[in-house]
């Protein structure tokens, strides 16, 4: 049986100080480290040292140069296998822009997945799409109406061999990423060699302060920034060995993640809060683990929720999980990946505030003994901003706020993306001409550390998944068997750990039988397409509140709902105003 790549480089550690990914891999290939791929039961399947990754990528790049013009976009199925790493890096050596694509994840979700893929191919203007042969039928069927060729990994490896390489240089692009935007209108975030290099360096040198003994472990999907940048590109640019398991295997057997850390002395690994939660839920006490090597257990990708993390700490603390290992951080794909990190060893710095005051005056004031429990809410500090980067908290008139005043988190620095691919409107809405990004997230300062209180105004966070209300609304309108009007979806129960997802749908009819048919069809479609339980209420036409520019105002509809001012067409007596009991 082969062994995974060692933790020891055999050469000096360099903290991602390269101008391009190709330069970074050229150096990593002289080290002994690399990528290791494990199955769902923690057995080693494939070893891909950086030397072999470079050799294969260069070989393949010579086939890709004649296949497509420089800067052509290649959709790439982001499977957690060696082929993905080879193809991604081959694109770098061939001057092509890879766009990692999500994979189908839910039971029966093929239909909505195909529609999502079609939109991505559209907005990314793909030259071709590469995928494993097992996914070829789904991909081809999704791109049915478009003249984009779908090539299996085998086909790609058999393209005619060319002679030359065309590596990206320091001023070139690097990739397009689709972790922002709803699946109904995806936005491709542009990564450049400069933004990726800046962020990888910042993460390695400052955020994680990578040392000679570090080893990464990851189950994160590679179509998401935390997986792609955090656990493929950052380790590659810092010559760290990585132990991978497939995200699907993780969801089914989360303890395998911890097993890998224990078996191979992993030191760096990240997850959104729900990953830690899943481990607690699935722990069966059927094995012995030693998690004492795990110095940085990063938290990112969604709101940091202290309760499940404390449970994880209590349970796995007995197996060596360190007191200060938790490292909350903040960032988004528009800043490549990371912007802030909690200082090493700090763990969860909690701040419990008075939510009533928060909502009334937009100030984060510490709760006292007199604050009713239902008005208290605990947030966790996400640390300090990376060197060379700046964060400002601003109000809606762009005034810079300080201290405990809550406002929009704005960011500036070399890790910033230049914008969204072929989408000037969205780019101008988020990126200002003077180099600031409006993240759309809300937060405040706790001394010199950032506290995030809400992600995006309308985004629904449910069990670690980011769900766009427009996806729910869109699915509802498509599924209704009788003509319906506008739909509006929003979350109930606070910022970041939504208890319930509400869906209002305007109906033209008042016939109880027709309403019942609509109710059943829409509920079934939402469970199937979105995979989230919603509370559906059928409402009369004209219920929704529309802004002057014709857009649905979810915040105002929610407010109206909470005030009990929205009718339920299926209530016993249709004039009964309901909603107050759920407020």
């Amino acid at each position, binding site marked *: 049986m082969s062994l995974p790549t060692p933790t020891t480089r055999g050469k000096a550690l360099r903290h991602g100080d390269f101008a391009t990914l190709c330069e970074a891999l050229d150096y990593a290939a002289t080290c002994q480290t690399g990528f290791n791929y494990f199955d*769902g039961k923690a057995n080693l399947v494939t070893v891909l040292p950086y030397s072999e990754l470079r050799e294969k990528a260069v070989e393949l790049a010579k086939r890709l140069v004649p296949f497509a013009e420089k800067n052509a976009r290649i959709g790439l199925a982001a499977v957690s296998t060696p082929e993905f790493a080879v193809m991604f890096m081959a694109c770098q050596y061939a001057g092509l822009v890879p766009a990692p694509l999500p*994979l*189908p*994840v*839910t*039971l*029966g*979700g*093929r239909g909505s*997945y195909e529609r999502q893929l079609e939109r991505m191919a559209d907005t990314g203007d793909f030259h071709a799409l590469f995928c494993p042969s*097992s*996914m070829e*039928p*789904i991909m081809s069927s999704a791109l049915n109406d478009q003249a984009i060729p779908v090539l299996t990994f085998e086909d790609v490896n058999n393209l005619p061999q060319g002679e030359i390489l065309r590596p990206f240089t320091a001023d070139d692009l690097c990739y397009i990423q689709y972790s922002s935007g709803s699946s109904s209108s995806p936005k491709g975030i542009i990564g450049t060699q400069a933004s990726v290099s800046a962020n990888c360096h910042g993460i390695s040198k400052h955020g994680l302060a990578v040392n000679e003994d570090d080893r990464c472990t990851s189950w994160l999907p590679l179509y998401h920034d935390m997986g792609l940048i955090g656990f493929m590109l950052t380790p590659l640019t810092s010559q760290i060995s990585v132990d991978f398991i497939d995200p*699907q295997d993780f*969801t*089914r*057997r989360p303890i395998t993640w911890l097993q890998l850390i224990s078996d191979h002395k992993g030191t760096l690994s990240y997850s959104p809060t729900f990953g830690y939660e899943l481990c607690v839920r699935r722990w069966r006490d059927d094995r012995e683990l030693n998690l004492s090597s795990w110095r940085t257990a990063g938290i990112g990708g969604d709101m940091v929720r202290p309760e499940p993390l404390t449970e994880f700490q209590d349970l796995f603390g007995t197996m060596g999980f360190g007191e200060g290992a938790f490292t909350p951080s903040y960032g988004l794909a528009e800043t490549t990946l990371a912007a802030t990190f909690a200082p090493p060893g700090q763990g969860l710095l909690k701040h419990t505030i008075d939510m009533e005051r928060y909502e009334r005056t937009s100030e984060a004031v510490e709760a006292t003994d007199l604050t009713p429990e239902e008005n208290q809410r605990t947030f966790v500090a996400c640390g300090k901003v990376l060197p060379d980067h700046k964060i400002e908290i601003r109000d809606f008139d762009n005034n810079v706020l300080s201290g405990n005043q809550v406002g929009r988190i704005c960011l500036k620095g070399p890790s910033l993306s230049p914008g969204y691919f072929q989408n000037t409107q969205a780019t101008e809405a988020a990126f200002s001409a003077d180099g600031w990004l409006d993240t759309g997230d809300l937060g405040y300062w706790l001394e010199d550390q950032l506290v995030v209180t809400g992600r995006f105004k309308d985004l629904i966070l449910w*069990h670690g*998944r980011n769900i766009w209300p427009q996806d729910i609304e869109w699915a509802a309108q498509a599924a209704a068997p009788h003509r319906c009007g506008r739909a509006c979806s929003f979350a109930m129960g606070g910022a970041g750990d939504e208890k319930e997802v509400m869906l209002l749908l305007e109906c033209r009819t008042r016939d109880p039988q027709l309403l019942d048919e609509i109710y059943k069809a829409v509920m*079934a*479609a939402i*469970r*199937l397409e979105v*995979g*989230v*339980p919603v509370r559906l209420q059928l409402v009369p036409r004209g219920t929704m509140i529309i802004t002057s520019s014709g857009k649905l105002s979810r915040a105002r509809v929610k407010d109206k709902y909470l005030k009990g001012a929205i009718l339920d067409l299926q209530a016993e007596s249709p004039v009964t105003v309901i909603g107050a009991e759920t407020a």
Partner: protein
Amino acid sequence: MSEPTREEIYDKICELLKPYNPKNHPIKMSSGIMSDLEVDSVAVFDLVMGLEDHYDISIPMEMVSDIKTVGELATAIKELTSE
């Protein structure tokens, strides 16, 4: 383990679905797992893991995305166990 019949697989699915079916909806071969029963995307993984462990198989994701009903799931498992 000898090869299970489609009916045995169906019984196993019903058993594993029990915790997610508090209102005791009747489970038929034609029942949509996520559309007719109260199973969300997190619970589905519990179900799939339970079946994989029980039959010592691995259901590939591209197969999973095509499965909508209890009957389709039973057929998929039947195919995988007879390989």
